[in-house]
């Protein structure tokens, strides 16, 4: 092998990772149990979600007339009961937090650069917070028969019609 005139060593080499003369400084450790509780939350919420989601599917799609009964009035009727309000609220929060934490770990696993991670997570958390707040608001403020609305637009069970 002939020696090239000029050697090029511009590839990543181990000494490029030196920080203050120390190789491979590991990132500062975090002495908190957040990751442990996040890990535990994923498993617990997963089990609860199985019950909530399949219960939700069963009640909406299989009981009585099944999927044909689902309309504006059906949803309005469900949210008139505190039981279904709480059911849907818990399902919304657990599903959103479970999904958000899952996306967070995916970002940690696949985004290599710290700035990429940061901005992806900002985007993720803003989107999740928006959906959680909006969903919670809808569940509690849902009014199937708003007073003073055009009667022709109201659902059939509203007394104003």
């Amino acid at each position, binding site marked *: 092998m002939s020696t090239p005139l000029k050697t090029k060593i511009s590839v990543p080499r181990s000494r490029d990772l030196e920080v203050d003369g120390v190789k491979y400084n590991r990132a500062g450790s975090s*002495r908190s*149990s957040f*990751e*442990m509780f996040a890990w535990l939350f994923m498993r617990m919420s997963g089990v609860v979600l199985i019950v909530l989601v399949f219960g939700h599917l069963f009640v909406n799609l299989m009981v009585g007339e099944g999927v044909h009964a689902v309309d504006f009035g059906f949803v309005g009727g469900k949210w008139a009961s505190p039981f279904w309000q709480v059911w849907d609220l818990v399902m919304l929060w657990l599903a959103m937090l479970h999904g958000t934490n899952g996306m967070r770990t995916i970002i940690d*696993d*696949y*985004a290599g650069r710290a700035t990429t991670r940061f901005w992806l997570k900002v985007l993720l958390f803003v989107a999740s917070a928006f959906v959680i707040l909006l969903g919670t608001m809808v569940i509690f403020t849902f009014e199937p028969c708003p007073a003073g609305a055009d009667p022709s637009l109201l659902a059939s069970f509203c007394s104003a019609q």
Partner: protein
Amino acid sequence: MSTAVTENQNQDAQQPDAEGGQSIPTYDIVLQVRRYDPEFETEAHWDEWKLTMYGTDRVLDALHKVKWELDGSLSFRRSCAHGVCGSDAMRINGRNRLACKTLLKDLDLSKPITVEPIKGLPCEKDLIVDMEPFFQSYREIMPFLVNEDHTPTGERFQSQEDRERFDDTTKCILCAACTSSCPVFWTDGQYFGPAAIVNAHRFIFDSRDQAGDMRLEILNDKEGVWRCRTTFNCTEACPRGIQVTKAIAEVKKAVFASAL
């Protein structure tokens, strides 16, 4: 206890040895090695050799044949060459193996055998990687006995049951096959990695050791046991047959037990 690596069933003799009259079969194999020399190139490339090897040969013998007879510039680590020192972990046909424990006859010889350096660690030259990040996380979990009691005059006695508790994780030879097969480690190398957790497990569950809680606290880190995604790559890669993912799960449980 050792992992069997069998890709095909071509166990039997293909052609008798024409010269010696001995009955060791020979194979023609194609060996592809990922080469990288930082002094002369910026990118790695593949080199290919056609070799005639004996049926009893291992991948390491093929690498030796290349280095000793065909191209002396080929660089790789090996010390004992018998699966004990853990120097020659490399990616053989896409899987992390010890070259000295992988028999050629167990590989699919109809296709070229590919040999690459292990992933996730900086490549120094050819198959040699810088193991420093691996050993740094190993050192962090304090891989030594901590016992503040008076030093006994004889050995520190331990029941057979207590010894059995961590027997599996004593087998580690620090070859880095597990850590460098872990997709989480590949991302940024900050994850402690399976090998460090296995060696922490070896002391955490040792009845003679007294620093188990400290090690659990170290591994309850953002980059500690909770980054394990149980992909089982490490268990599959371990040339010593250690149930690595199981050991990590046991450490997770122990972190819970100490934190709650």
